[in-house]
């Protein structure tokens, strides 16, 4: 029965075996897993870099490395986390695997382009590794590559920004693929308001990937041109304005953070209804808020530049706009919580991780208000408060959403179930470690400790030591979660098509899915979060 064979045993295009069935695949599911492998490698590498950084900071003066190494390490930590984990993460892995299935179709619109995107991702990563070892070593500019420093220094800025350029192309093409698939390939009977929220979040994200990424592409091209040709476009001695670099840089890099968070929010919107056994509250509001976040998020870039010397008009305008972005995000948080209200809650690892997400993301968002208000920003700009803020939203937010997605879709992707108890222990330890790691940073920042500093004044030592301790807890918690998931391959407890009682289309196909996703034509429900049949099924089985 070849039609029901899992996609591991059949290749698309047909006839490929062994390593070729992976390296030449058109199958969006195999590509999703190939991204998972590569991205996990980069995440673990960047995670250990982070641990080394925080270990260095645990005591004043030199602890385990010198200042130059520290600077290169925080640059590398940022570059890897942002360009090789956060931005591709959820879309490239879970988006690739599940968007076509959620839409009721058999693949993305441009499967070969999808494969090309993966090769671009790997190639970009290769360039990043090259920039570590070639020539004069890895840059120490911070992942933001501000001029004039990035133009003048001799370390491998050129190679690193080329890596980021290639990775940007990969991201842009994935977005292109998803938009085309969304419009042209969804099942005929699935209207716009019947599309699952994860897919909607990927759609909003895809537009940002297409329209914002080219700005950073041209910005990095200009860095390379300046390094080689010394044109002077950002050099005041030659008539240039360094602030224009910052404008161009943040025109992408701010919308980029919405590329990072929107798919994570989409994951949470899928998980909460399932484990509340209740339809999502405010489906339309969540759809509109996803598009609103994508749009509004593209209007606020200069809130990274309040202290840069730009005009007061600009400071006022961007501060005002920044407050507007908070609104659609809050809509989502209200919707998730309202979904759980009077629901039939079943605690599972994906739900626990989602709840931690909601808490940490909300805290992070609130600290964003302190940063978005121009007056208070002056006090905390370039301090550890910023570092705390973005780790709350990016790690507490997207990071935990990533873990939640792994735990939610693991049985579907691999056909095996993992043990819950270690997952709970790992999740709680990660959450507690997170708290001890990042809350001190918020306080240290308020107290005036700058970011990206190798050393600090004596009064900051306690906070930094506490943060380091939290960091070790954090790592242990994450390791427990990862090892537990990997152990599921050894335990081999088979997973049914629908282990959770979910309603979207990926749960109607076998675990793992067959190569063309659907054996019979998918039945599109009137509304993607209708739990009546699920409730009946569970009532019958006595749960």
């Amino acid at each position, binding site marked *: 029965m070849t039609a029901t064979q899992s996609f591991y045993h059949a290749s698309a295009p047909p006839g490929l075996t062994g390593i070729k069935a992976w390296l030449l695949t058109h199958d969006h599911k195999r590509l999703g897993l190939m991204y998972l492998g590569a991205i996990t490698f980069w995440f673990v590498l960047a995670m250990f870099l982070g641990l080394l950084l925080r270990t260095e900071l645990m005591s004043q003066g030199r602890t385990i490395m010198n200042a130059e190494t520290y600077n290169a390490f925080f640059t590398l930590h940022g570059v890897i986390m942002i360009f090789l984990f956060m931005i591709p993460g959820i879309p490239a892995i879970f988006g690739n695997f599940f968007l076509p299935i959620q839409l009721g179709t058999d693949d993305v619109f441009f499967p070969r382009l999808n494969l090309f995107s993966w090769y671009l991702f790997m190639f970009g990563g290769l360039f990043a590794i090259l920039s570590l070892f070639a020539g004069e070593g890895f840059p120490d500019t911070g992942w933001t590559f501000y001029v004039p420093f990035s133009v003048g220094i001799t370390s491998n800025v050129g190679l690193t920004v080329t890596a980021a350029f290639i990775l940007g192309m990969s991201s842009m093409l994935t977005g292109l*693929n998803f938009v085309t698939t969304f419009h042209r390939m969804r099942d005929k009977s699935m209207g716009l308001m019947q599309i699952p929220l994860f897919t909607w979040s990927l759609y909003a994200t895809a537009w940002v990937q297409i329209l914002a990424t080219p700005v950073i592409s041209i910005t990095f091209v200009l860095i390379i041109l300046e390094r080689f040709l010394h044109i002077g476009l950002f050099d005041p001695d030659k008539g240039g304005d360094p602030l224009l670099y910052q404008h161009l840089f943040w025109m992408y890099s701010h919308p980029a953070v919405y590329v990072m968070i929107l798919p994570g929010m989409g994951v949470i919107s899928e998980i909460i209804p399932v484990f509340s056994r209740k339809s999502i509250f405010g489906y339309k509001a969540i759809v509109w808020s996803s598009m609103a976040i994508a749009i509004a998020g593209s209007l606020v870039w200069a809130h990274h530049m309040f202290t840069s010397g730009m005009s007061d008009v600009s400071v006022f305008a961007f501060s005002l706009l920044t407050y507007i972005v908070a609104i659609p995000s809050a809509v989502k948080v209200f919707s998730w919580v309202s979904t759980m209200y009077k629901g039939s809650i079943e605690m599972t690892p994906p739900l626990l991780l989602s709840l931690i997400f909601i808490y940490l993301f909300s805290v992070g968002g609130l600290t964003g208000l302190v940063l978005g208000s121009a007056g208070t920003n002056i006090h905390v700009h370039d301090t550890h408060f910023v570092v705390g803020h973005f780790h709350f939203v990016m790690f507490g937010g997207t990071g935990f959403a990533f873990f939640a997605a792994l735990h939610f879709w693991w049985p579907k992707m691999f056909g095996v179930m993992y043990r819950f108890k270690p997952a709970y222990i790992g999740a709680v330890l990660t959450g507690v470690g997170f708290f001890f790691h990042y809350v001190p940073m918020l306080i240290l920042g308020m107290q005036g400790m700058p970011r990206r500093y190798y050393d600090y004044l004596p009064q900051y030592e306690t906070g930094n030591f506490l943060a380091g301790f939290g960091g070790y807890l954090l790592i242990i918690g994450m390791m427990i979660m990862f090892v537990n998931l990997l152990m599921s391959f050894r335990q081999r407890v088979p997973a049914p098509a629908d282990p959770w009682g979910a309603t979207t289309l990926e749960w109607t196909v076998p675990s793992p899915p067959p190569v063309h996703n659907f054996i019979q034509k998918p039945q599109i429900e009137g509304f993607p979060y209708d739990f009546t049949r699920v409730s009946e099924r569970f009532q019958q089985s006595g749960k």
Partner: protein
Amino acid sequence: MSSQIDRAGIKLGMWLFLYSEIILFGGLFVLYAAYLHRYSEFFAEGGKELDRMIGTINTVVLLISSFTVAASITAMQRNAKKQTVGFLLFSIACGIIFLVNKYFEWGAKIHHDIYPNSETLVSGEPGVNIFFGLYYVITGLHGLHVIIGMVLLSISLVFVLTGKITPSRFSMLDNSGLYWHLVDLIWIFVFPLFYLVL
């Protein structure tokens, strides 16, 4: 797997790609706009040094080539293969003419010590340095896209000759045409911004 080709979908994908190209150049136009505001008189001074005639000829050449590319698609839709080939060849020739003109323009400027980091520009007015800095970057990136466009048109030409492109299956030609038109669109803005801002 769907065996029918979704032409509208392929075209949508191409338009999405064009949007990314528009924004790519858009970043450079942000710089141009900001610097024009700051250095208006010096931009005018720099603009006077550019040859308006060559710029106009290049504009006309690209406009005509856009016409012939669009015409090649009409010809393909009417199954007039010879016409398609003729129009495509003419379009590619226009691209060559454009690039040759550019080569002479740049050559003349470089000969007069006007190029990034040259003595004249570095020691002269900063506004003029920025004008020519943007000139080289924007026309350089545009020229690269002309080359890419010509490659795409050439590939389409080969496919037409070998029968891979037919009246019922000509997305490759269609999309190469769209790319070429984009190159024309960008030049339509570049021309007045550099040659006519006097």
